[in-house]
């Protein structure tokens, strides 16, 4: 019986393999809790959690909020729009003011990479990163890993493919270290302009041809084209991207293998992923969302043990 090695959850790369395994095991228990007639346990009833979303979010925010409520924690919600951030308050001031109201844990999403890391050095509360810029989105990485684990029984030796905008993706930033730590092989696929320059140094291979990449993999995680993070043109047009890197039914039928499709959401239907694939039995997308709550409950529960 041991706890997590970290006090905060900022990045997957800080976690040990045993931490990830512990989170998966705990999530399994919480998944059972979520099947009960009363889907609530009193574990965190003395804990107050602030959800600070300096950037827009639907899934992650609702998922965290639900996880907190299922654990009986008190929550306060904050979003940058409509707050004093608009009046020029600094991040540290905003957070310190919120902490003055006796908050134990902070769940934060921010458009700047490294914002949670910075905060963890200056405030006493525990921090859970809910996505920082183009750096990491650790709970997404965990829930992706857990969903694949549920489907395949083990991550060891599995061929995991990530398709799309790897350069701007914090999901890839968390999925890659998680899958590698758990013994899976990782390949990325996408236009060369959207692939980080030294990606091979992480132990990841690159394949520019989508069909070849799909033939190699057991699971393909299709990422969203994030136009909001691109300050210059990385691709000629969405139409051209879709032509070369869009995953569609005809392409999946042309390869002689039944692969599992994932997507972190929100989907641009018809761009990176076609509707008939996203809504098919091959897709794990809704399981990912369902597992998201259990994974976040596990992370909150395990970190709260160290408050």
């Amino acid at each position: 019986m041991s706890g997590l090695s970290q006090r905060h959850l900022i990045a997957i790369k800080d976690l040990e393999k045993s931490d990830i395994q512990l989170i998966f095991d705990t999530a399994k228990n919480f998944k059972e809790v979520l099947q009960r007639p009363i889907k609530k346990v009193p574990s965190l009833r003395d804990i107050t959690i602030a959800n600070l979303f300096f950037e827009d979010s639907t899934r992650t925010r609702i998922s965290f909020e639900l996880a907190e409520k299922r654990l009986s924690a008190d929550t306060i919600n904050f979003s940058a729009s409509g707050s004093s951030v608009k009046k020029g308050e600094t991040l540290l001031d905003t957070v310190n003011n919120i902490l003055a109201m006796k908050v134990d844990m902070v769940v934060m999403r921010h458009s700047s990479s490294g914002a949670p890391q910075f905060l963890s050095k200056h405030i006493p509360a525990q921090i859970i990163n809910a996505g920082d810029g183009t750096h990491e989105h650790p709970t997404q990485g965990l829930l992706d890993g857990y969903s694949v684990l549920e489907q395949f029984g083990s991550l060891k030796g599995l061929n995991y493919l990530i398709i799309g905008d790897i350069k701007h993706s914090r999901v890839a930033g968390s999925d890659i270290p998680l899958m590698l730590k758990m013994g899976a092989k990782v390949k990325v696929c996408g236009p060369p302009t959207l692939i980080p320059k030294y990606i091979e140094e992480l132990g990841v291979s690159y394949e520019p041809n989508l069909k070849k990449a799909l033939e190699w993999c057991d699971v393909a995680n299709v990422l969203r084209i994030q136009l909001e993070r691109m300050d210059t043109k990385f691709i000629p047009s969405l139409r051209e991207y879709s032509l070369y890197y869009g995953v569609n039914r005809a392409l999946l039928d042309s390869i002689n293998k039944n692969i599992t499709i994932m997507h972190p959401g929100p989907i641009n239907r018809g761009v990176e992923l076609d509707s008939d694939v996203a809504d098919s039995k091959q897709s794990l997308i809704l399981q990912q969302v369902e597992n998201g709550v259990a994974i976040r409950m596990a992370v909150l529960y395990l970190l709260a043990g160290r408050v």
Partner: protein
Amino acid sequence: MAYSLFYLYLCNFPTMQKRVLIDSAQFLLIIDRLCHQLIEHHKNFENSVIIGVQPRGIMLSNRIAERLREIAPKLNILHGKLDITFYRDDFRMKGKPMTANETDIPFSLDDKQVILIDDVLYTGRTIRSALDAMLDFGRPKDVELLVLVDRRLHRHLPIEANYVGKVIDSITTEKVKVNWKETDGKDKIWIVNE
């Protein structure tokens, strides 16, 4: 050889004392008696279910369910497992979070007569948590408690067992350990002074 054994005995004497309270023959008699008491009260188990409390209560509830089926093969006994980790009141007091076990109650507890089963009743806090946890699965008609060992002198809460294997008067520095044939090789109840 004899001298060194005696030396070891002396070294260990003040720190660690063990004595067997119940050996395997008595153990089986106790399980038998508890089963017969249950049948006396619940007759054909039409509306009764047994729920073992994780982790150590499961060993006892498995054994009770198995023995009940031997004694009365026609009985249909519903048997659930309940984990109480997320309901504990000492969460965070131990410095690290406690790891949970499986909960498996594939039936509703509404209007059922529930028999909660745990190995040792000590402070009563585990049972308090178990009552809370159990209520998330329905509203039972009534709840009874069956324990193998009742350490009656150390209760923190007003909780008593309906069926008791053995009452033990012990002091707080002593620990009661239950060994199971399935996991430890032999059925036995020890009292250990640490």
